[in-house]
């Protein structure tokens, strides 16, 4: 299972027959293992990693620190899920340190992003404070580099 997850994380689109060869398994074994991981909710989904320099360049990504007041029952969970449900919110983490939630927001443009923070996020009672950082450039995302090193040159045949 570890090896299958590892391969899927490298390239979820890898043909299952190739996976079977790499892991010395039968094709049906690989397919059923993946189906099981999906059914059990271990694998939540598959997505493409988009280079924002090349596509939808107006889109804005904001990384927002949110300080919230935990509730007597349920701690941070209810507020966090309330925030996470906004469709602008791509990721939402409870973190240690000087603030509580780290959320990543995507919006079509700067105005929409600002409106989300001012009108939606900051107005929630439990939210004490926010600090918004806008993404300027992406160097690496989910393990993929946006600026590639040139492939190292190798001799074409060597002992």
């Amino acid at each position, binding site marked *: 299972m570890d*090896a299958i997850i590892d391969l899927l994380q490298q390239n979820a689109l890898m043909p299952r027959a190739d996976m079977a060869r*790499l*892991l010395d398994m039968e094709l049906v074994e690989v397919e059923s293992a993946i189906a099981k991981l999906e059914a059990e909710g271990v694998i939540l989904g598959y997505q493409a990693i988009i280079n924002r320099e090349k596509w939808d360049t107006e889109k804005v990504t904001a990384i927002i620190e949110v300080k919230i007041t935990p509730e007597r029952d349920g701690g941070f969970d209810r507020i966090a899920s309330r925030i996470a449900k906004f469709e602008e919110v791509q990721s939402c983490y409870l973190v240690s340190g000087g603030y509580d939630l780290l959320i990543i927001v995507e919006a079509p443009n700067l105005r929409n992003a600002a409106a989300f923070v001012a009108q939606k996020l900051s107005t929630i009672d439990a939210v004490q404070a926010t600090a918004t950082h806008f993404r300027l450039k992406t160097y690496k995302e989910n393990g993929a580099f946006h600026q590639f090193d040139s492939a*190292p040159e*190798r*001799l*074409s*045949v060597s002992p």
Partner: protein
Amino acid sequence: MSIRIADHVRDIPRSGIRDFFEIVQTMEDVISLGIGEPDFATPWHIREAAIYALEKGRTGYTSNLGLPRLRRAISDYVRKKFGLKYEPLSEILVSVGVSEAIDLALRALLNPGDEVLYHEPCYVSYAPSITLARGVARPIETRADDGFSLRADALEKAITPSTKVLMLNFPTNPTGATMTAAQWEPIAEICVRHDLVVLTDEIYSELTFEGGTHSSIAACPGMQERTVFLHGFSKSFAMTGWRIGYACAPAPLIEAMMKIHQYAILCAPIMGQDAAIEALERGDESVASMRREYERRRNFIARALNEMGLECLKPKGSFYVFPKISSTGLTSREFSMRLLNEHKVAVVPGTAFGPGGEGHVRCSFATGLDQIKTAMERMAAFVAQAR
């Protein structure tokens, strides 16, 4: 004037690999499975440590034997991984790749006419290195039926009163052969009985698959005192271009090797030595992740070769497979040349590694999966057509 080259140098044949390399160089769009080095760049933390050392101005000579801190790290590593104890300051020499260490050991040990045994097919430099050290090269053929491992009876038969040294390389380039502790026992017993010195090149030992543990002949009873344990960073840490290897041996032999090393080379480059320290101290995870990747590709390539009808052992170590191609009716060289010219895939003819390699080709899986996959498709088409 006509310059006369020394006889023993002139008589060394041109490397079969170099011939082949020059043909491949002139062609475009070739997928090469002929490359004997990792396709990974050196792990970033190692490169970064070397950059840091350069920034600090660490650019001078080191002790002839190598940085003491590196030798201590090597001593710890070799004790932990191979169960061998070497005194860092007197029993370890840092060399410019294992190749230099082999040359040093042979030159330090051999008188003209001393015989050196080595198993074949083998790495291309062994026989020439022996000749250059004025020794007599005596190959012992290993066979596919034995998984290309060294048989004790074959060794025993090859020994003469002039035999001084046995050279070993397991896991083996080009066959991927490995040896178990049980297989070493009778070999070690013969070495002790005939008072042989053993040079063991264990450069591929980290690339041992299926969770197996590599076992060194140096760990057998009576062996460490007569063994030169050779290892380096090129394959395990993807550091070929840094040129750092090392030899571990009894102090008097290291001292003799150091005499040659200090006058010929002075010391291995400090940049490589600084990088090597980082590799040993914090490189385990990088090695494990590369090994995982190689093992998967090995599974892929071995199955693909067998499916196209080329009998291929699944090697337990190294990053080479050595499939048998004689069923196509072609020689190793014909097979490799036609595969290259007609389908643009480069593999190395088995004969480049000694006459015993006839009927086989070496395919390296130190190449990205996409390339391996395409190469296997082209090779399958070629094999079907050649039959």
